[in-house]
């Protein structure tokens, strides 16, 4: 508009000074993008970004430029040094993101020209991707797409010359652009080849606390867990699911007991003894949520699984090389009824018969009394279970607090406890009688989602049970909770606990429609996980198979991607250009426009003020050779357009006549338009 700003416009648009409005707009977008990182970056990084943005905005409001260069450099050096002190590296997602936030924040502080704003928009776009890299949330993706929309609209207002498009039309334009970008995004996302593993090793940030079961068990731990409604994993069985009393999901196995806490054994690296299946095999897929521990939850007892870097420990826990920090899918086969053929190794027998009588003298005494009455192992086990069933023991989430010897206190005084109390006491009673016993923690049961054919296992399904060694039979699962509250196994904790217990999500079971809605929502989550988060090489191969492409491989995928991109780009070109197509809709007008174009091509363009018959007259004078034909065509056009009476010729015929009309080039001179 102003020719002075345009004179050096190669750089002119970019070196134009920014206004307060523009700064405020881009700061808002930056702030919104930062929200996505809340909780994953140190607070002072946000503080630094907010302060530098605030200072710049305050100065801009009073029409003052950015702070002097020296101040900016000092602040930048300080911030980067602080960042290095905190992370000791600039590599890795958290450190890299923090650095990017600081760079963008400080860039905001020194923003003078539109070029600086470009840098900030690029930072915003990249911050969005960084937030999504380790996220699995649909809502975050939706939110950041919204931020992208807003940023793009802001960018439009930044780069346009005055008068600026107003906010509404900027947003509408950016929205249209986003809409037109979607088909292309979809084609790229579905067909862009995925790789099996990362391109290079990702440094592990490793500062996230684990959730769910831990590698030790104190009285009260599982009670706490059961209060949580969080999903631990979801399971889809390839065929029928095993009956509830066989649905034990094995987690860490605990061997060492110090009178209060059960712990895992330090070395369980030996190969697990072979098992002989007794019942049917179950094939299933566990969609595990990240819990930051190495163990995976498999149905008791796993025999095959698909993860290459997972293996069984000596006590049959499925362990991965690295902690589960991202959602993973485990496809495995398990036998719920097995028997062990090899005898128990001496080391394990020693480990699992260890007792510390000083911590539970009364229990040791009880064990001796019972053992003398029941010298047979199986009889002894039955006797202990009968004890739990017949004596006034209660199954409750809120047992009285125990101090000192938890086993003695529970068995003889309080007689109230949750699964971990019973499992612990049972194992001690077994060991006191010389029977090898260990505590297994994991999950039991689950809720069936009838809307999508899978089981949801929540933290509230956490459970602890025992395994005892019977010579000639191997490790045998004994769940003392069944003796006291058999409903726990059949119907979950809700069925087993009395109505006033504070079980998580319990009130929902009363509202059927609410429970249904929740299940449907969960089914959507699972669908999102299966179809979007876990879309990989295999899914692409399946897609190719589904399209009946023989021998699907990477090369064919790339070819398909090329074909899809060509199609989508054709559509894009068409849809974008269609809007500038000013061709009239009317068939008659179109035919007439074609006639005029043909005549213009031979050097007699219609002037803007000429009607059809005037034009024909002039063509007749300029090009007598074309005169009669043009005159006839123009007369037809006039009739078709204006005559009230029916005409001898239809629009279609007129169009055909125009198409057939081929005027020869002028001979007199070479017209300017035809020169090359």
């Amino acid at each position, binding site marked *: 508009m102003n020719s002075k700003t345009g004179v050096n416009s190669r750089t002119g648009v*970019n070196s134009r000074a920014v206004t307060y409005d523009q700064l405020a707009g881009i700061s808002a977008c930056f702030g919104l993008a930062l929200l996505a990182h809340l909780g994953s970056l140190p607070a002072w990084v946000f503080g630094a970004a907010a302060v530098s943005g605030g200072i710049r905005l305050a100065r801009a409001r009073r029409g003052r430029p950015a702070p002097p260069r020296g101040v900016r450099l000092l602040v930048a050096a300080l911030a980067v040094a602080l960042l290095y002190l905190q992370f000791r590296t600039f590599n890795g997602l958290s450190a890299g993101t923090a650095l990017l936030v600081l760079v963008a924040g400080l860039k905001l502080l020194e923003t003078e020209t539109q070029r600086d704003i470009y840098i900030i928009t*690029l930072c915003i776009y990249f911050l969005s*991707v960084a937030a999504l890299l380790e996220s699995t949330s649909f809502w975050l*993706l939706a939110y950041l797409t919204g931020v992208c929309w807003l940023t*793009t609209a802001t960018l439009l207002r930044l780069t346009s010359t005055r008068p600026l498009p107003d906010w509404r039309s900027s947003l509408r334009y950016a929205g249209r652009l986003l809409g*037109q*970008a979607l088909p292309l995004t979809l084609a790229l996302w579905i067909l862009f080849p995925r790789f099996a593993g*990362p391109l290079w090793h990702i440094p592990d940030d490793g500062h996230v606390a684990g959730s769910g079961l831990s590698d030790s068990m104190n009285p009260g731990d599982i009670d706490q867990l059961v209060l949580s409604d969080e999903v631990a994993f979801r399971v889809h069985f390839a065929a029928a699911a095993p009956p509830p009393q066989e649905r034990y999901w094995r987690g860490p196995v605990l061997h060492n007991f110090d009178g209060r806490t059960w712990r895992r054994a330090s070395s369980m690296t030996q190969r697990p003894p072979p098992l002989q299946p007794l019942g049917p095999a179950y094939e299933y897929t566990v969609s595990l949520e990240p819990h930051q521990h190495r163990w995976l939850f498999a149905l008791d007892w796993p025999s095959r699984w698909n993860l290459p870097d997972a293996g069984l420990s000596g006590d049959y826990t499925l362990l991965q090389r690295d902690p589960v920090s991202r959602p993973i899918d485990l496809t495995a086969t398990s036998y719920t009824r097995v028997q062990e053929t090899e005898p128990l190794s001496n080391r394990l027998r020693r480990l699992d018969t260890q007792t510390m009588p000083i911590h539970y003298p009364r229990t040791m005494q009880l064990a001796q009394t019972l053992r003398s009455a029941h010298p047979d192992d199986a009889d002894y086990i039955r006797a202990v279970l009968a004890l739990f069933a017949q004596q006034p023991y209660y199954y409750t989430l809120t047992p009285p607090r125990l101090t000192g010897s938890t086993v003695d206190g529970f068995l003889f005084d309080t007689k109230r406890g949750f699964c971990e109390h019973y499992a612990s006491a049972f194992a001690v009673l077994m060991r006191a009688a010389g029977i090898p016993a260990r505590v297994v923690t994991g999950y039991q049961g689950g809720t069936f989602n009838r809307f999508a054919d899978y089981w949801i296992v929540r933290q509230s399904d956490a459970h602890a049970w025992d395994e005892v060694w019977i010579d000639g039979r191997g490790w045998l699962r004994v769940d003392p909770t069944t003796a006291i509250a058999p409903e726990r196994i059949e119907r979950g904790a809700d069925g087993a606990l009395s109505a006033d217990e504070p079980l998580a999500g319990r009130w929902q079971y009363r509202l059927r429609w609410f429970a249904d809605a929740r299940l449907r929502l969960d089914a959507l989550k699972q669908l999102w996980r299966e179809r979007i988060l876990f879309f990989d090489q295999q899914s692409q191969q399946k897609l190719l198979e589904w399209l009946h492409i023989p021998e699907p491989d990477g090369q064919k995928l790339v070819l398909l991607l090329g074909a899809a991109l060509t199609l989508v780009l054709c559509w894009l070109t068409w849809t974008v250009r269609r809007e500038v197509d000013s061709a009239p809709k009317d068939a008659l007008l179109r035919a007439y426009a074609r006639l005029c174009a043909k005549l213009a091509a031979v050097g007699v363009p219609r002037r803007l003020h000429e009607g059809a018959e005037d034009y024909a007259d002039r063509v007749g004078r300029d090009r007598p050779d074309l005169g009669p034909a043009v005159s006839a065509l123009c007369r037809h056009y006039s009739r078709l357009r204006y005559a009230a009476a029916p005409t001898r010729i239809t629009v279609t015929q007129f169009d055909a006549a125009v198409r057939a009309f081929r005027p020869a080039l002028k001979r007199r001179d070479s017209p300017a338009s035809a020169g090359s």
Partner: protein
Amino acid sequence: MRRALADRLRAWAARRHGRDSLPIKINRRRIYILPTRFGIMLAFLLVAMLVAGLNYNSNLGLAFGFLMASIALVTMHHCNRNLLGLQVDVTAEVDAFAGGEASFEFVLKNDSNVDRRDVEIRCLGADGIRSVAARSSESVPVAVPVPQRGIIRIAQFELRTRYPFGWFHAWTYIQGSLAAYVAPLPRGARTLPSVAGSGSSHRSEARGDEDFAGLRAYEPGVPLKHMAWKVLARGGEAAVRSYTGLAALPEWLEWSALEGENTETRLSQLCLWVLESESAHRIYGLRLPGKEIAPGRGAAHRFACLRALAVFGIAEPPRTAGTP
């Protein structure tokens, strides 16, 4: 280096498209597009997004990266479309005097349903930028500096746009030959010669005594009411009725009256007289060696005089390859 490259590109475009007759509708074959510096920065960012998404095996990160890449591609189409189908015309320039600027009036006509924003016209180092709303047209004045008297010819000018977002830069070259006559700088100390000693200016003030004198060819700038509409309606060329005042005696602005001065000074003086006579509503003629312009008045007459002064002593120069 960069400049030389740009010059070669222009020459190549000129050969490729040949001469254009104005008005011209910009078709897709003549629009070129390249990313700007920020477009290249964005491309690097997109590659970084792709690598990060693949490395972290994050389908959501990839989705966002692909969304950004698609937005960039759509933007490229929009940038191209911003010029596509635009009609360009130039109305002849108005006054141009040596040492000043020749103001070319470009007309951008947009008969599509989308707005064209920030279309820039560059021509001999000068430029103008305008937005054209849907189904409307805008004129874009581009003031080209003209240091010397004579004819300034523009063989090529450029339409360019960076809309939207400035990630891409689309442009087109148009080989329309424009010419402007640059009159000498009006300057001089002598007073306007008068006819027979007495001032004649008062006579022509009265419009009533004007009489129809004949038809002249249409020149832009003529008042619409002087257009010979009837002639046009009969199918003739656009023409202008010219009038002479009955009572007004013509006054001659003579080259020979300025003996003893050098050529440019004489021309400057004559130019000043032309302007003064015109603003005083006199009837005047111009006599130059080898050229005489019959007495007359009005914008067209004035233009003819200025044009004669502009080209005086200058052989019709060879066409220069004008660089926008």
